């Protein structure tokens, strides 16, 4: 879908600012520079107990720059686009580069690897910016009302919210790349609260979000789902400490896939902050497991038509049937590791670094309910808490809540337990992957089952 004329005009204006800045930097004697200029618009409203709590609306803009002179690098950013201010800002950025030390690998990608054309990934919904505060308030009110009415045990809510944002960005590099991109995003969320024994509250959170307004789930569906999650978690118990098979529901599964993602980034690998360093070609997971990073999925949250250095992007098979095939590499990390770059740079205008686009565990064929089959006693994890992961060793240990699995069925809710196992062993222990993947977030996963983990409880 072509973007509105007004957006193209805005991109034209940003392009002129970026190119003028590049020219100035050339005059200041830099060897290489990247300039990123962007603007954004946002609206956020929240409603609680039927009353409006917040209406926030703003526009912002920013210019960020990376300069390299004699192998020395500096980065800076500003929101002041006035001509004389920009000139002073750029001069200071170049001056700042004196502080860093020459790095022969800090240079740009070769001009040949920069793209001139890129696919339209359908990331911009013209309807988004047209949603005014009044309509947003109606949506937030409706989602809260749906949650409060869904079940008599819902006592209150932390509010319903609707937010929308849109952004335009231009990336210009001294290698001759000039990229233009625009995108939108909106979400509808509600947190329903039910009262439990001992003054405790149980919260059920559910949200729907996406680049296209028309693709959001209805307020009624979102509210109902939040309420049913709150109610289902009433009266939880702690289970005895021991080894259990564990099924991760897709939202919790995503958190684990996110840890894997952080360990295949070139930056983590060359800094020795990844247990997967030096393991290309090794078996790192069970044969059921394949990980993919795909920047080219239309309308997906993490899609990008080119990377943060202006390189071509493509779908990368990171792990195929358990075997580690590729890291995700920007120019610098690829040089550090002596591998070919994969077009995975982000940070246009900042220090380029490797990053994921849409990173996911490839779904299997099984319906998620079937993951429970055959489990006599296990744990079904719906939510995790905390930061218990050491990327260097892969040691993983996190707070968890969910449900007890008994004879293949979910029974009592469980809370205040931890699940632990080294990530390396955990991935090798994945023995079933479900078919319920959705690209709702840029890192995503279907539900999966791990043969065994240590659960610490009572």
């Amino acid at each position, binding site marked *: 879908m072509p973007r509105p004329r007004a957006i193209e005009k805005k991109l034209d204006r940003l392009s002129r600012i970026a190119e003028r800045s590049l020219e100035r930097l050339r005059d200041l004697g830099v060897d290489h520079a990247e300039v990123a200029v962007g603007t954004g618009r946002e609206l956020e409203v929240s409603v609680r107990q039927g009353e409006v*709590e917040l*209406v926030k609306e703003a526009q912002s803009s920013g210019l960020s720059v990376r300069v390299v002179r004699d192998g020395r690098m500096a980065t*800076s950013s500003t929101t002041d686009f006035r001509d004389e201010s920009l000139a002073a800002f750029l001069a200071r950025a170049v001056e700042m580069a004196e502080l860093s030390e020459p790095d022969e690998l800090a240079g740009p990608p070769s001009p040949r690897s920069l793209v001139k054309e890129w696919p339209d990934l359908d990331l911009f919904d013209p309807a988004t910016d047209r949603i005014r505060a009044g309509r947003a308030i109606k949506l937030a009110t409706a989602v809260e009302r749906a949650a409060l009415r869904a079940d008599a045990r819902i006592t209150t809510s932390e509010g319903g919210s609707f937010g929308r944002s849109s952004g335009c960005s231009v990336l210009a590099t001294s290698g001759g790349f000039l990229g233009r991109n625009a995108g939108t995003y909106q979400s509808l969320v509600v947190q329903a609260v039910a009262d439990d024994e001992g003054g405790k509250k149980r919260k059920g959170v559910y949200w729907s979000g996406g680049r296209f307004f028309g693709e959001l789930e209805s307020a009624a569906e979102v509210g109902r789902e939040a309420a049913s999650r709150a109610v289902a978690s009433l009266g939880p118990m702690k289970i005895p400490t021991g080894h259990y098979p564990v099924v991760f529901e897709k939202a919790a599964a995503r958190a684990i896939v996110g840890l894997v993602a952080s360990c295949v980034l070139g930056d983590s690998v060359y800094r020795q902050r990844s247990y997967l360093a030096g393991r290309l070609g090794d078996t790192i997971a069970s044969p059921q497991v394949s990980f993919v990073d795909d920047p080219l999925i239309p309308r997906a949250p993490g899609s990008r038509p080119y990377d943060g250095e202006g390189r071509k992007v493509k779908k990368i098979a990171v792990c195929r049937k358990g075997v580690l095939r590729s890291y995700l590499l920007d120019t610098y990390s690829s040089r550090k590791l002596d591998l070919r770059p994969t077009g995975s740079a982000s940070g246009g205008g900042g220090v380029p670094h490797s990053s994921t686009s849409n990173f996911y565990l490839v779904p299997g064929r099984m319906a998620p309910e079937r993951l429970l089959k055959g489990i006599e006693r296990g744990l079904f994890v719906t939510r995790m808490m905390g930061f218990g992961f050491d990327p260097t060793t892969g040691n993983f240990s996190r707070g968890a809540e969910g449900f007890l699995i008994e004879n293949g069925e979910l029974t009592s809710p469980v809370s205040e337990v931890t699940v632990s196992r080294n990530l390396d062993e955990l991935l090798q222990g994945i023995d079933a992957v479900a078919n319920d993947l959705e690209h709702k977030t840029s890192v995503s996963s279907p539900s999966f089952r791990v043969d065994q983990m240590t659960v*610490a409880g009572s």
Partner: protein
Amino acid sequence: MPRTGKSTGRTSARRPRGEAPFVFGPQAIDPELAQRVLARALEQGGHFADLYFEYRRSASLSMEDGRVRTAGGGIDMGVGVRVVMGSAVGYAYAESLEPDEMLRAAETASQIARAGATVAPVAVRQRKIRSAYPVEDEVVDVEGAARVELLRRVDQAARRHDRKIKRVDASLVAVHKEILVVTSDGVMAHDVRPMVRMSVSAVARRGKRTETGSSGGGGRQGLAYFEAVTPEDHGIEAARVALVNLDSKPAPAGTMPVVLAPGDSGILLHEAVGHGLEADFNRKRTSNYTDCIGRSVASPLVTVVDDPRLAGSRGSINVDDEGVTPREHRLIVGGKLRGYMHDRISAEFFGKRPSGSGRRESFRHVTMPRMSNTLMEAGEDAPEDIIRSVKRGIYAAKYSGGQVNISNGDFVFSLTEGYLIENGKLTAPLKGVNLIGNGPAALRTVSMVGHDFMLSDGMWTCGKDGQSVPVGVGMPTVKVDELTVGGTAV
């Protein structure tokens, strides 16, 4: 205006307190202009409005493996306009001080209050505040080469500590932030908020085993910080932790006594009780501490305060982001819950005076009740006795972070340095592990509190509703009889 890379050397005592264009120079905000913007904000109605001007100049350096890889920094400035009507907030901001843009933001923020009674802003009176963090030499103004030297020292200290240290990464971030709050009830308050943070991580390798350790610190302090705590201290500390972890064993799993080391363990307070006592959650009745004022929520040994006025600490503020002068909040005294932390909206709701806990990440964000420096007061036990009292348990020394579920009170924190306690002695170092407990339940099992109160060296950043603010924590050695340790060894 000082520039990055240029030395200002010793700053003279006569230097104006502030450099932000909204307090100094042709764009300085005079009370008349501020009132005009506030009046526009309240034109459609509303009980209260405020303007939050912010200027943030930063300078950062990062060193990778012995080489300064990049220098960064910049200036960010703008003003947020807020209109409050009951507990409803209209918010907008401008990234400039142009009167037209400020007035436009005020109009956008005023949308919230269509057809309400209007109030007129009161004439402002400027207030003088004594700073809890007067700084002589701000690190952001220190000449680049001298800042590089600080990183060089931390790097070398870590490397020289042991040959098994194979890699060191370090960074130094310094910020000069100024705020000016002008409110419709007549406050005009300016605050200069310096900040420095050094962090370092070291990689140790022996055979096939690789482990990391980290250290760092800082606060609302200037160059003098590095006289009290040298870069060498941080370098050696990071290396020491990495080496300890080379010998770490799988942690046990299950519920057992946990001894919390003084200082950093304050993260437990922050998660287990702090967030639950932020008044917005209680106003909304979504905190497990709702309606608990006056009740016993912890062991009688536990007294918790939130103190925004600690000299030089990372979480300190002279005035909050709504123009309220903060005071020490006694949250839990002898195990009894005494009060919540309020911003203006929650104070109005509960019929209290605002306590100065209204904070925000930047002018692009609305305020919420937030913690500053959250501390547990010292008790009477000797730390050695506390360890000696444990037959089998865990000694928790360093953490990567924590998290809480406000509604049910479950909290976690993640250990990066810990030890097994066997028969009253620290024995094997443990692999990184997660601990989980429930706020009131865990604090009721506090059975010993040490006399060795320690403030954590400033490294903590607290996230809430997508907004990050710097915070401080501190506590003495404490024994919690029952926490669940999420190890792998059953």
